[in-house]
């Protein structure tokens, strides 16, 4: 059954609602003043341990790559390009993807379109590069694991849903 229209009315303002409204507003303010509900992430002292399903940085597993070029063709930001290199066990040079993180928008099309699962997302969201050239990875760089710079001084946390507080920050272990 589809949705239906329901007519509503905004509440009327009377002297009584003026008084109860003021009191109610102040009471709600006091309620949160006494029992604040905050889930601020104190980055970089804390950082979020992301789920495995998170669409973060991308890593290449060269052994699985068949050089089909689907990833480069589907990339909406033209961040992924193919380069021809000599791969072990192959007679002729094979096209292999490289990535330019200046352009990548983390849509995850390349990972989803890869027919052999040679590309995978890492649960990493923030990586620091000191200059723009470093963000253009070559085949070796594309195969390396990257990690968040906050891991050195911060503790990993995770947010879990809570019916009372919305989100609750709990300590997490690095998987």
């Amino acid at each position: 059954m589809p949705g239906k229209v329901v007519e509503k009315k905004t509440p009327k303002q009377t002297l009584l609602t003026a008084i109860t409204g003021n009191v109610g507003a102040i009471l709600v303010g006091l309620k949160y003043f006494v029992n604040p509900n905050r889930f601020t992430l104190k980055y970089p002292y804390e950082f979020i341990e992301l789920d495995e399903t998170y669409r973060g940085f991308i890593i290449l597993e060269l052994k699985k790559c068949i050089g089909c070029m689907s990833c480069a063709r589907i990339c909406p930001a033209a961040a992924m390009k193919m380069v021809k290199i000599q791969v072990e066990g192959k007679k002729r040079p094979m096209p292999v993807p490289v990535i330019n993180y200046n352009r990548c928008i983390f849509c995850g099309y390349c990972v989803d379109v890869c027919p052999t699962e040679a590309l995978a997302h890492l649960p990493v969201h923030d990586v620091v590069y000191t200059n723009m050239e470093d963000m253009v990875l070559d085949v070796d760089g594309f195969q390396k694991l990257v990690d968040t710079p906050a891991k050195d001084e911060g503790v990993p946390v995770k947010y879990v849903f809570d019916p009372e507080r919305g989100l609750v920050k709990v300590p997490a272990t690095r998987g």
Partner: protein
Amino acid sequence: MSASPALKDEIKLPGMDLKKIGKDLYEVFIGPQHPGSGHMRIIIRVDGDVIVEADPDLGYVHRTMEKLAEGREFIKVIPLMERMAILDACNITLPYVEAVEKLMDIEPPPRAKYLRVLLCEINRIASHLYGMGIFGVFLGHSTMYMWPFGDREVFVELAEKLTGARLTHTYAVPGGVRRDIPQGFREMAEKAARYMEKKLEDYKRIFLDNPAIQKRLVDVGVISKNLAAKLGIVGPNLRASGIRYDVRIIEPYEAYDEIDFEVPIYEEGDAYARAWIRVMEIKQSLNIIRQVLEKMPQGDPLHEKFWAKAPKLYKTVYETTGRAKLIPLYANLKVPAGRAIARAEAGRGEVIYVVESENKTKPYRVRVVSPSFRNAIVFKYIVPGHRIADLPAIYGSIDYFPPEADR
């Protein structure tokens, strides 16, 4: 004052357009570098404290999205179009996907339809919360600014669990969706919904029932039923003026015709009704999310055209991680020639896409009519007659979002 006629000539800039305005009128530029404007400008002329003329000036964040779309393959248009309202990403791209599906003459499997509705409603809540936050700060109510932005995080997090990305989900693709719900998603959504329902009561008490806020909003910026119809505004603003129009019931798309929900209508048409309608719609969205998770049928995530012939690896990946992999055909999707139109109810109103294809891999034309663009015109008609202080109240109540209007 030291401003002499000589000085007036001195500050004249080359190419500056001078325009005579009425005697005793004062021209004030609200935006684009004014703390009370978005990426837009409203030129107002005031007589004392009362605005006599208002002129919305759009286009500061125009990014030629429609033209850019003509140079991209069909699937690459989705991440592009998302950028016009990143917090409403699924709603704003869904009609495009539907239009492409119409051209290809396919229909997504039932499970995909439900999943699309699920993300659409999560996005709608996030979008309304964003709008309410901006509304709050425009009225100088800092708590109403921080709370919705904080609570939006709950739904952004929920969307992240579902799609893997916080904002630009790129979730719906022609033929279906890209992921299934993860383990334990039902419980998470239920907890988030319970939290939000409780929090909405507090919103009501600190903001909507607050006499200071009521004074600012009641009978301010009234859009009459007639005017709303004449100007062709859409979304919650239209429904707050008493017009029964919601694409979800007029022309149910996806799984909306199988879901039982209410569309709240207010007759008042003032800023206060527009504030209320957003709260009520959030409540209904929570209701829809619950129903979707309950009623969702089993099945494939993608249309059989893309799923039946997929290699075995695709099925194992789907079963283990919930990711629906796309076959390489997607990169160069050839869409049969024709023209298709599709519309959906986004957070801010009806969004319409017209997609024209020439049997090529790239669209010939993608036309977008975004809700904020249709709502922007109301500034011209309802702002005059109000005081300067009412301008932020009206701006906030319209929930106008410049990137979406300018595209």
